[in-house]
């Protein structure tokens, strides 16, 4: 299941296109079912028939129709998009760094985006979302830059342990500064809700701004997927096959930046999606990133859509933070990976 032991084992090179196809088809069905379920669940009880009517016979005087169209639909869709984005970002990072525990949350990239967003909240509170999302890219880029820079300058690369440590430290420095700023500008309360991660406030407008970025990012990731597969076999092999490894890594970093930045600007710091999903997908479909990336996108969407239904249901009428729900799934998974601890760890 790990891509970090190339060639030596036949099993690790296996790909299962049929399984990937099944996964994608089943995943899309699950997302559609999840979107529907997400739209009918909430404080106000709404039936499927009402949902159907609200789409095809919209009546602006019907309160339920308005709730569906302005609150529930954008929220569900935002969940699917964000989940896909985090999962693909994680898959790319794991492939490029050949590191099984790479993830935007663990590596401090979400914290980077969050840090810049705090700056925006403090110094330019009235900024429109189209600009906020650009700042969020810059922040994610800062996080990517810090962690990659560390890996570049360290003596013999960063082992998974060191990468995890570096991510934890980068996160804690950035969130320390964020907290200091929020303390100074007294935006603690807003920030606590935002950083807990949640899509309850997503609107059509936000969805329409982030959708092109996320869809574009995933498309570029799919174009890049063949090169990432080769890169995940090892840098020398990739170079030997005539690949421009620097170019691939650079484009991959930009894609991660855009995907993580767009997601964080909408839902805040949700970690572990990018860690868990690609692992499960790799276990099921094999090592070819041409399959891993689309499957991760679909499964990431499934995970977040259903986790968000959980966020609505667990303590109705209160929202449970989405980030916490995902962490409850992600932490045991991380522990499992830590326990497996192979020699290279």
């Amino acid at each position: 299941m790990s891509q970090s032991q190339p060639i030596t084992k036949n099993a690790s090179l296996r790909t299962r296109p049929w399984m990937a196809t099944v996964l994608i088809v089943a995943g899309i069905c699950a997302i559609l079912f999840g979107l529907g379920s997400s739209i009918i669940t909430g404080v106000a009880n709404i039936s499927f028939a009402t949902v159907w009517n609200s789409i095809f016979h919209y009546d602006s005087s019907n309160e339920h129709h308005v709730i569906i169209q302005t609150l529930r639909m954008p929220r569900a869709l935002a969940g699917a998009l964000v989940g896909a984005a985090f999962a693909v970002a994680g898959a790319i990072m794991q492939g490029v760094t050949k590191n099984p525990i790479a993830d935007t949350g663990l590596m401090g990239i979400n914290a980077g985006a969050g840090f810049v967003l705090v700056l925006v909240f403090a110094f330019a509170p009235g900024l429109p979302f189209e600009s906020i999302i650009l700042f969020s890219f810059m922040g994610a880029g800062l996080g990517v830059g810090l962690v990659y820079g560390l890996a570049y300058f360290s003596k013999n690369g960063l082992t998974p342990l060191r990468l995890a440590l570096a991510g934890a430290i980068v996160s804690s420095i950035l969130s320390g500064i964020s907290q200091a700023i929020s303390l100074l500008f007294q935006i603690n309360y807003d920030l606590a809700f935002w950083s807990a991660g949640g899509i309850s406030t997503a609107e059509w407008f936000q969805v329409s701004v982030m959708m092109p970025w996320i869809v574009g990012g995933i498309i570029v990731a799919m174009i890049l997927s063949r090169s990432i597969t080769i890169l995940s076999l090892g840098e020398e092999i990739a170079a030997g096959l005539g690949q421009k490894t620097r170019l691939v890594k650079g484009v991959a970093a930009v894609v991660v930046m855009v995907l993580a930045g767009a997601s964080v600007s909408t839902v805040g710091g949700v970690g572990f999606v990018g860690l868990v999903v690609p692992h499960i997908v790799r276990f099921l479909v094999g090592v070819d990133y041409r399959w891993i990336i689309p499957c991760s996108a679909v499964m990431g969407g499934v995970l977040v859509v259903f986790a968000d239904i959980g966020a609505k249901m667990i303590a109705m009428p209160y929202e449970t933070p989405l980030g916490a729900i995902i962490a409850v799934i992600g932490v045991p998974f991380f522990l499992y990976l830590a326990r497996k601890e192979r020699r290279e760890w």
Partner: protein
Amino acid sequence: MDIDLFSEKRKSRSVRLILLFAVLLLVGFVLSLNTGPYSIGPFEVLQTLLGEGSKKQNLVLFELRLPRMVIAVMVGAGLAVSGAILQGISRNGLSDPGILGISSGAGLAVLLFVSLYPATNMAPPFLMPFLALIGATATATIIYMLAYKKGHGISPTRLLLTGIAVGAGLSAISIILTLQLNPRNLEFVVTWQMGSLWGSNWKFVLALLPWMVVLLPYVYRKANVLNLLSMNEQIAASLGVSLQRERLALMAGAVGLAASSVATGGGIGFIGLLGPHIARRLVGPQHQYMLPITALVGSLLVLAGDTLGRSIMPATEVPAGIVISLIGGPYFLYLLIRTKG
């Protein structure tokens, strides 16, 4: 480089360094006494200490500043020595109560208390260290059990990775609890999590003091055991050290020190990492010399962090924990790059 670790030269150098750091700490203490939103000159400080101060000076000095600084010194020593123990027994220079998730466990226990009993001001201060201890002990036990593998024991790598994961899980639970607080308590909890030395009155000094008075000398007496444990398991075992028992006892000491410090100081990170590291650079790995310097460096760092935090922007205090992580974080990253492994 002198090869003989116990040489007279090294000993006298260590003693001189310990004295130097004690003097530095004293200077820091006096400087810190002068600074703050209401600045009091050195001469006035002396006057006030001798009982000749004005009412306001008395209040600021005796009721606000002095207890806070005493707590800073104790918290710094506690966290730094706790880090030194953890590094010794895990033979990994990157261990620290924060990274291992022990601080988050202590923090969660306190947070639970705050959210269940919103009138925290009424709670006896002696309760906090005990709650924190329960949280920290539970966390340490969980991490130890999860990292333990039959036949392999505890590997430092797995211990750290498990600590990071458990820490992330605990902070997710903390976030759920935090969001259910009212804005006033939230402000308190957020500030506390950043390491603000919030419990700064004489009651908290009294609550913290017994822990330090008992645990610090105990650990110092075990300096030789720590020397052996941090070298090599086989050597330690062949020299007749009962490994498991000593390791558990020392770990309990580390947990106690970290928990009581976190209960009063809040989530101050990096001290457990920086203190021992700086001390080791100065006097080498012998715990007899290293431990006192570790404690002094830790105290000095927290005191300086708190004083800076109070004086950078007097209107809104920056918590000591933030100041320290802004200095300590980059240093930690530098360590990550420089060391191999």
